[in-house]
């Protein structure tokens, strides 16, 4: 008998929703056949069968969210060797689940103990209410499990996410009354929570430094026009990605990972470029792998398919991992002229592309010409590289964009 459990399938996931079973009890399956589709806060993934065998029992209903380590289904595996392997990996998974207690399991434990009764005095309950804290989420440390004032304050200080700003106090003047709008609470979980965790981890770890540059993109736009007239539509971003890759070739320190523990800087040989992508659920970063080995056209096609997958929530774990450098193209949103982007840890650099504007430019012989100018913001890890190398990095990138024919020199 093999218990198939939910494993951490990357990105530090702690829970996932059971979306769909591909099998039912009694079905026979082969090793690696997909058994069940799960949805984490970042992606959809399939759990494959660990061995040949038959499905014994589906443990969790579709639509249920479970934490890592939970048994999803039980199957009868053929062959003792596989059985052993599986039970071993099941054992590995179990303590992992214990290590990351989810808030929901802690709350349930308290509930069971109190049989639905709130073990707090009315005064303590009011403190919780006034701070927007659900008393049932607070663990009591007092006698008989009683929730003390201090427990509530500790819960508040613990950066609880459920805090709701108390709405404005009562109104005056009966001549004209205004409606107090109830504050709306949005659950802080899933992708939003994951983003928050990654962002604060990056900011706490990396010595961020950002500089700005303006780049003349008039000639690249001309190239694109020409390609389009030949029915070869290629996006600006695809060209930027290629240019980043060519720049990384000259400055490998920007395609590195700092390993502080072992006091090493690992220089990655391949260029896997992450593309910050906005989705209704928040930011995610699908990765185009081996950009250094791909043509602009290939990059363009792959980017299109990744964006579609991101928007349809179909990204797999592989689509989202392994990045070595990240870009963020906010230009099409016609918004900012500069930003201080947060680096996608453990990468070293991130470049953001801002809006392009027709501007008067002064050329060599004091001639004013109208050019299409784009601002970029380049964030780098100052622990790994210094400002000077960052400037030369940006200069090289600007050179490739301003004189796009230079790119042809790099053709293999």
């Amino acid at each position, binding site marked *: 008998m093999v218990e198939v459990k939910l494993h951490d399938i990357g990105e530090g996931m702690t829970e996932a929703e059971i979306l769909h079973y591909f099998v039912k009890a009694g079905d026979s399956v082969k090793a690696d056949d997909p058994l069940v589709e799960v949805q984490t806060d970042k992606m959809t993934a399939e759990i494959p069968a660990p061995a040949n065998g038959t499905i014994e029992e589906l443990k969790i209903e579709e639509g249920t969210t479970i934490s890592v380590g939970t048994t999803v289904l039980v199957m009868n595996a053929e062959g003792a060797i596989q059985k052993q392997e599986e039970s071993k990996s099941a054992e590995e998974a179990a303590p992992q689940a214990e290590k990351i207690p989810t808030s929901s399991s802690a709350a349930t434990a308290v509930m069971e103990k109190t*049989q*639905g*009764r*709130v*073990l*707090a*005095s*009315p005064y303590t*309950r*009011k403190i919780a*209410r*006034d701070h*927007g804290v659900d008393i049932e989420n607070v663990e009591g440390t*007092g*006698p*008989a*499990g*009683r929730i003390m004032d201090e427990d509530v304050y500790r819960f508040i200080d613990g950066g609880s996410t459920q805090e709701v700003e*108390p*709405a*404005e*106090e*009562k*109104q*005056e*003047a*009966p001549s004209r*009354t205004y*409606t*107090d709008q*109830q504050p709306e609470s949005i659950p802080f979980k899933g992708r939003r929570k994951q983003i928050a965790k990654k962002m604060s981890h990056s900011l706490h770890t990396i010595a961020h430094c950002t500089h700005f540059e303006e780049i003349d993109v008039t000639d690249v736009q001309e190239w694109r026009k020409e390609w389009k007239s030949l029915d070869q539509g290629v996006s600006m971003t695809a060209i930027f990605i290629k240019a980043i890759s060519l720049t990384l070739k000259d400055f490998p320190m920007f395609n590195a990972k700092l390993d502080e523990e072992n006091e090493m800087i690992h220089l990655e040989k391949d260029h896997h470029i992450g593309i910050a992508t906005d989705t209704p659920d928040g930011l995610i970063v699908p990765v185009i792998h081996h950009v250094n080995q791909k043509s602009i056209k290939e990059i363009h096609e792959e980017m299109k398919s990744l964006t579609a997958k991101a928007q349809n929530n179909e990204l797999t774990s592989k689509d989202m991992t392994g990045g070595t450098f990240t870009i963020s193209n906010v230009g099409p949103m016609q918004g900012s002229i500069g930003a201080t982007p947060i680096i996608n840890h453990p990468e070293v650099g991130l470049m953001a592309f801002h809006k392009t504007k027709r501007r008067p430019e002064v050329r060599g012989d004091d001639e004013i010409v109208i050019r299409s100018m784009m601002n970029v913001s380049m964030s780098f890890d100052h622990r790994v590289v210094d400002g000077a190398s960052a400037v030369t990095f940006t200069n090289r990138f600007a050179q490739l964009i301003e004189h796009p024919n230079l790119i042809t020199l790099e053709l293999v």
Partner: protein
Amino acid sequence: MVVGEIAEEKDVVIIGGGPGGYNAAINAAQHGFRVTLIEKEQIGGICLNEGCIPSKVYTTSAKKLSEVPGLSSFGIDVGEPNFSLGNLQSYRDQVVTTLRKGVEALCKKNKIEMVEGHASFLSEDRIGVDNGHQFDVFHFNHAIVATGSRPRYGQGLDVDHKRILDSRSIFHLEEVPEHLIVYGSDYIALEVAMSYHQFGSKVSLVLDGGKNDFDFDSSINKELGRLLKKQKIKLYKSCELKSVENQGEETHVSLLKNEEAVLLEGSHAFISLGHQPNTEELGIDRLKMDLSEEGHIKVDKQMRTSISNIYAIGDVTEGAALAVKAIKQSEVVSDTIAGKPSEFDGTFLPTVVHSIPPIASVGLTEEEAKDQYGDIRVAQFGYGGNGYATVHGKREGFIKYIVDDATDLVLGFHGLGEGAVELVSTGTVALEMVARDEDLKFPHYPHPSFNESISLAEFTTKREKVKS
């Protein structure tokens, strides 16, 4: 009927002027809202006009009457008491009118707009009020549904309010029934049975739904059984109700006990089978409001319904149909509308019965506690050992409280006997304060008093039965 074309703008509209509705109106007005209170009958609702207050006039009369024979011990000789139902009814009307006028004055003082008529929702922010010759449409920012409940009959019982009575009509009888058959087991059934017994009726009490006992703690059930027997109120347990029929002067209640037919021949029958929420005529079928299977409006701890600007309080919501609940919820709902954090928690809602002697209960019964906590301790003290009870000649009764053996946490508090209705508040406060046994024993209780029983109660340990 003239259909109003223009919707009047209202801020807070409350439907129903019972204890939930009028308290919510006063609270909301004190928070600075403009309040409109719609009531189709009389302000005060069932509680004031037909329920708590009139019934307490009757139970108080019955209690006083029961004390007359004992007065001679105190040197007061009044001879045979002469009971006049007519005088009692006049007094009831006087009490109800006084209280209703008080409520009306409070509403007026708080500038609450009173609208008479029958209200029903037209949409999520509009309500229509029909008062027979006019139909007004109000557009509201917030609405509070406090339409209450009415007696439930079920089982095809034909309540004619003359010989077959419910909790409203029982207090309007012109004469004391010769033989009153009470069908029910709740506080109303007990109060009616014991009151009319004191007024001179022969009373038979049939537990509803085939129950083999009351729903109280087992110690109360046992003592209650003994007291009913002593008062010569015949108790029928585990009986299936077949029919209640009025035949002129007689009312026949047919029962089936152990597959044998039992026929009770009384003059009147009284039916108490709980309450039915008043939701049908509210027009909420036009709205997508979540209701329970029994038709109660579902609300959260802040009294919000599934529609964000409509709230519900009192009997129309799930849980016990008690004014104490409605009054607390009226505070919570007005705080919620005013944006102040507030919550309702009905875990420790006390149950009281103004029987002779009274019964009061809060928290878990011994049986529930054993079931949920395993090993428990039970502290009990009989009024026989209480000096003040002896002085009063009220030696019947006891108090009892239950603690968790592992943590000493107080789990439930029960009392049967004189003063129980006031005594239970000590238990309620203890439970809300998460008290343990010593927290109840340590304080000083006046001597002599009924309260003393709490500090005198001795524990016995009850081990959980090993489940096989």
